[in-house]
């Protein structure tokens, strides 16, 4: 039995299961909730299985079709992939439980097939070792994201979805042109082989620029973030949670993966540029968040600023240390958990009051203590206060910046933390005060309150799990690559 478990193809299952579940939920609309929840749970179990396997055997490697690179496509999982799969499964499970009560039957029939196929696309993305295959998975994630963003209907959602569609298609095309250049430079699209064969030539440079630009657009790095606030703020709550927590991180993961493995031919300057954009994103996003009067827009702008933190790693890791990279992985994890919790909270508040105006929260704390508690806990992680996951990530990053004497980064991170505290306490403040106009609130189903709280608690708890998480992150060759610059 033990052998069976460690030999099973958990990686392949992680891709096929959600895709199959997606098809089934499309074919049997009356059973979508059951099919959906069963699939998401099975995916979560498979992630555990894969983790067990990786801890025992190191990396997972599968040559699709038995061909192997460069002719065929390889699936590959190391600590970083496993980490992302875990984040996806955790957030996915939380949001799925929330979605059970959030959507009515008609919306559920449209939500579940799209979400399950999105989950399949995300898993396939994290497991791929082939840059053209990554393009196809990016298209799955993008089109599913657009479909989900337009789910709630209405002018604002359609407008947001359209912006998102344009941005994601443009990003994919830039990425694809980069892939084409890399293929013709090295005669392969396999990441490890590319890493061996690529040299510092003009076409590789052009490819690097195009791929970085395309992925930065999809990740909404300042100043390419223009599409994000509307798309994320006007979608329905579970969708906003998925888009902010997972979809944005998927393109960031590719960025990180390619950066670590094949863009070693880069020169100075690019990483500093990314760092500068990250700093600008932190300040600009936080200031915008502070000015918003609508809760969901505020949370969306907060995503813009938190994405900025992720890019601070590039100038720091130019010198190359494991702790800088693990800091960024930690930030991805804790932001995904905290941000999804926040959007779910926003969904609860909208359900409760019929609006998301921050100034009219009207003593929500007394009527929805669990929901507001979830917001506060998620806020702790976003602000980066101990003992949350966000604290560990930011602390590691800050430490690294101090060690390298990058006072500009230290300064921006401090300011970012203060601004985050300002916008989060603004919301909490209004949650305690009575609004001038009171209204008849609607009750919020317990499942929706508790699933939001669960995600927020998870964002705190990961702060205590630093050593096991670092162990997972360290599986496989990426460790060597991460530490290679030392």
């Amino acid at each position, binding site marked *: 039995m033990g052998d069976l478990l460690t030999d099973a193809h958990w990686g392949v299952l992680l891709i096929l299961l959600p895709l199959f579940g997606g098809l089934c939920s499309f*074919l049997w609309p009356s059973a979508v909730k059951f099919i959906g929840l069963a699939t998401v749970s099975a995916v979560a179990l498979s992630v555990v299985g894969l983790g067990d396997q990786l801890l025992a055997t190191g990396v997972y490697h599968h040559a699709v*079709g038995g061909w192997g690179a460069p002719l065929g*496509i390889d699936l590959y999982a190391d600590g970083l992939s496993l980490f992302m799969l875990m984040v996806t499964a955790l957030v996915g499970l939380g949001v799925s439980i929330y979605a059970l009560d959030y959507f009515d039957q008609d919306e559920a029939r449209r939500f579940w097939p799209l979400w399950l*196929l999105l989950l399949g696309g995300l898993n396939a993305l994290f497991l791929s070792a082939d840059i053209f295959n990554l393009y196809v998975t990016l298209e799955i994630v993008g089109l599913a994201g657009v479909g989900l963003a337009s789910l709630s209907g209405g002018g604002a959602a359609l407008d947001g979805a359209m912006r998102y569609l344009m941005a994601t298609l443009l990003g994919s095309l830039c990425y694809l042109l980069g892939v084409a250049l890399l293929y013709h430079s090295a005669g392969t699209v396999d990441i490890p082989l590319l890493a061996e064969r690529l040299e510092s030539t*003009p076409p590789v440079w052009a490819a690097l620029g195009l791929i970085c630009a395309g992925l930065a657009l999809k990740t909404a790095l300042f100043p390419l973030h223009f599409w994000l606030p509307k798309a994320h703020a006007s979608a329905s709550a579970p969708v906003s949670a998925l888009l902010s927590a997972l979809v944005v991180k998927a393109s960031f993961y590719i960025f990180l993966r390619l950066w670590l493995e094949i863009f070693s031919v880069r020169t100075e300057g690019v990483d500093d540029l990314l760092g500068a954009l990250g700093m600008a994103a932190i300040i600009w996003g936080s200031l915008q968040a502070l000015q918003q009067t609508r809760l969901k827009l505020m949370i969306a702008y907060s995503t813009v600023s938190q994405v900025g933190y992720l890019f601070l790693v590039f100038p720091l890791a130019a010198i190359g240390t494991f702790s800088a990279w693990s800091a960024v992985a930690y930030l991805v994890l804790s932001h995904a958990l905290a941000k999804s919790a926040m959007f779910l909270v926003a969904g609860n508040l909208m359900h409760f009051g019929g609006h998301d105006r921050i100034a009219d929260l009207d003593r929500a704390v007394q009527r929805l203590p669990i929901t507001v508690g979830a917001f506060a806990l998620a806020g702790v992680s976003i602000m980066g206060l101990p003992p949350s996951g966000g604290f560990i990530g930011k602390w590691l990053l800050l430490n690294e910046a101090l060690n390298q004497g990058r006072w500009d980064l230290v300064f921006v991170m401090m300011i970012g933390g203060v601004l985050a505290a300002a916008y989060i306490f603004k919301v909490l403040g209004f949650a305690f005060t009575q609004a001038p106009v009171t209204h008849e609130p609607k009750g919020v189903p317990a499942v929706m309150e508790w699933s939001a709280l669960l995600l927020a608690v998870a964002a705190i708890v990961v702060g205590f799990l630093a050593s096991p998480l670092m162990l997972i992150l360290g599986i496989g060759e990426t460790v060597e690559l991460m530490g290679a610059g030392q």
Partner: protein
Amino acid sequence: MEALDFALGLFDILLVFLVLSLAWLVMSSEDLFRAIVLFVAFGLLMALVWVRLEAPDIALAEAAIGAGLTGALMMAALDRLSSVKPIQKVAASAQRKQLSLSSKVLPLIALVLIVLGLGYALLSLPEIADGLTPNVKENMAQSGVKNPVTAVLLNFRGYDTLLEMVVLLLALLSVWSLGGERKLSPRSTNPILGSLCRVLVPVLILVSCYLLWVGADAPGGAFQAGSVLGAAGVLLLLSGWHVEQKYLLWPLRFILILGSGVFIIMAAVLLLIQGGLLTYPVAQAGWMILLLESAATLSIGATLAALFLGGVPKSRVDQ
């Protein structure tokens, strides 16, 4: 021989000039209808380009999709656009005036810079590169088919194609989730359209089957066959094809997911038997690929036709 090369060179240069000017005109012409007509012409010439680049498989796909279906899709969208709302003209043209010189000139400069930069990058690529040609050639005997492009699509990189089928399905799911049922239009009373349909649709279906079958040995295959099938569906929809409501629920959904479903099941079965995702046993590869392609053809055809309809189909009988 020299004269021949010269004539071909002239042909290439004229073709490049035409394609480029068409692309520019599509972007710059003021009238949307004209832009779409020019875009269709652009697709036609792109198919000629594929022929010149010895890519008949792509030429087939482009002829069916780029020059055919995309044009029909755009035309239908323009049609609905003008029936939805004719007021927008004023607001948009007012806004156009605000576009200052700098907002047009700066992108133009950027465009020239991008072309120059990328052009420089292209010209510094090695003159001769084999890519994956030798690898494909070496493994053709084990692929189960004789057309190298089909071998890559369905065997060597079959996993990409599996995911591609999911992309196609996702586009349709997203279109359907936008809501709105679309009634199938009433049966056309136009006799010319009716008789055209009676002749063309069977021919299109026949050609689709032919492309599917020939795809194993010669240019053709599931995507091309599916696109031609989709075109047949579009023609039927245009002429007011009539389907009973009961076929629009379960049977339609079944055909739509058939391609990706068979692919996933095949992948899972092969994983159990062969221990690898989409690892075909060499002796059985031929018919397995044909099975996958047949299912994919049906799904692609149905999905493209459904995408053309642009909403959840609903028969008029119910009204």
